[in-house]
């Protein structure tokens, strides 16, 4: 077993032990204290099994209501994130390379990104109504900033020699952007994409809570307003799992696309 595999397994084992310990403590305390708002992990688990899970492989082990809710939250978050990624990369490349554009957009961008995305939701509802267009729009605007800023920083920090080399090879502008610029800034861009995805999920849930139109956020609000505490906690557990899954997808694709970067970094340590 290689060094890296062993340390990965060690990490996982450590995490499992920690989780088991925390879970055990929670179970014991919650059972004893019998707080209304603090169910035991057992109760949450039972609720998940009842309403969320089935043995049907074809439905990914989820009940149809679970699938609908998770599907909507996922779809909104991912579509909005993809729009934000495209927008952020394009605007980031432009503001990073054209000094004039950078200077013009500094103040307005600073203003816009200082507003917490969640605070924009009521305005977007007022303008665009309660449909999926509004949800996707507000989440996309809210999570574009990490991508935009990281991309612009990547461009500004680009090694000038890379461009000299491209020029003496008589590369065209388009080829230079696609084959030199983008690969060179990819590590920075990916860092921005990872943060942006986390934002996207947060904003999607917040939007669903405020707009009350389906998805996990609306479900959480419904449970809260009916004081269905176990239901609420079960929804939170599902949300956590969604966040972990999305993060894992980004990390895995980053590992394969940016293999060279990981190896390079570990080689120079």
């Amino acid at each position, binding site marked *: 077993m290689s060094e890296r595999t062993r340390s990965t397994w060690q990490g996982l084992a450590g995490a499992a032990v920690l989780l088991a310990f925390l879970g055990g403590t929670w179970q014991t305390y919650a059972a004893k204290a019998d707080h209304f708002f603090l169910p035991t992990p057992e109760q949450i688990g039972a609720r998940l099994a009842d309403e969320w899970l089935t043995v049907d492989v074809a439905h990914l082990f989820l009940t149809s209501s679970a699938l609908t809710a998770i599907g909507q939250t996922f779809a909104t978050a991912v579509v909005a994130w993809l729009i934000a990624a495209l927008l952020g990369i394009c605007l980031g490349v432009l503001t990073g390379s054209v000094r004039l554009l950078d200077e013009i957009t500094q103040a307005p961008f600073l203003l816009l990104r200082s507003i917490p995305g969640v605070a924009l939701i009521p305005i977007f509802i007022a303008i665009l109504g309660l449909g999926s267009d509004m949800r996707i729009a507000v989440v996309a605007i809210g999570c574009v900033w990490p991508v935009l800023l990281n991309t612009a920083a990547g461009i500004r920090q680009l090694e000038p020699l890379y461009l000299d080399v491209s*020029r*003496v090879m008589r590369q065209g502008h388009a080829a230079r952007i696609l084959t030199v610029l983008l690969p060179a800034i990819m590590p920075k861009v990916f860092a921005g994409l990872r943060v942006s995805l986390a934002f996207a999920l947060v904003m999607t849930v917040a939007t669903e809570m405020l707009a009350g139109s389906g998805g996990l956020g609306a479900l959480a609000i419904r449970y809260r307003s009916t004081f269905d505490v176990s239901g609420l906690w079960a929804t939170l557990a599902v949300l956590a799992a969604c966040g972990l899954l999305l993060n894992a997808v980004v990390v895995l694709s980053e590992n394969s696309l940016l293999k060279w970067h990981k190896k390079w970094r570990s080689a*120079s340590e």
Partner: protein
Amino acid sequence: MNRSPIIVDVRHLSHTYGTGPGKVQAVLDVSFALESGKSLAIVGPSGAGKTTVLRCLTGLLRPQEGELFVAGERVTGVPEGIGVVFQDYSRSLYPWLSSVRNVGFPLRAKGTSRSEMRRRAMNALDMVGLADMGAKYPWQLSGGMQQRVAIARALVTEPSLLVMDEPFASVDAQTRAELEDLTLRIKQDTRMSMITVTHDIDESVYLSDRVVVLSKRPSVVLAELPVELPYPRDQISSKAHPSFLAVRQLVHQHISAEKMKEVS
């Protein structure tokens, strides 16, 4: 009499950086020419406009005054048929590509097929003695090997002119000697024309058929010294040859005189 065509012709090159009180005149008046198949070294004290001259020659910088011709064509952008080797090998090779992909990269701009790119890249790597290092990334190789990859990349398009900007300044002395000999071998085999910018006086004489000595900023040509060393050259007998010693001494004298000006 069959004279080789002039492959590089620099006429009254002049360039100033910046405007206003902070401006710096790097090059005042530099002229020289190179015959096809020969090699030229440009040497001068640090701060001379050597890199400026090179950037004008490779089309990366448009000179304020003067004209440059490569293979009879006026230089307006990057000229065709040149290969360039930069000093900083670790930053001139792309870290997301393997060595063979780095070497084949210039062929992409010409729309060569994948398999043809690979074949020619492997050929070029073979020429620099790195045939089995194709799969390695540049940052997995030593400094000397990285510079060889950079040289291979400059050669892959089979240029008629190789331009090198202080190519061996960042490697140790032994590696430098190996790379100098590699360069001479390549020049013999391909009959390429070569211009090398260097601050190493020994290297300037060893590698060239003519040495152009530049003054400090604002640069002018102090001397053009022909080198009558026979080929093939080697580090031991060539450096003991009377022509080597004579030219070397002259270059040293010019450069020391330049340095004295700074003090006075």
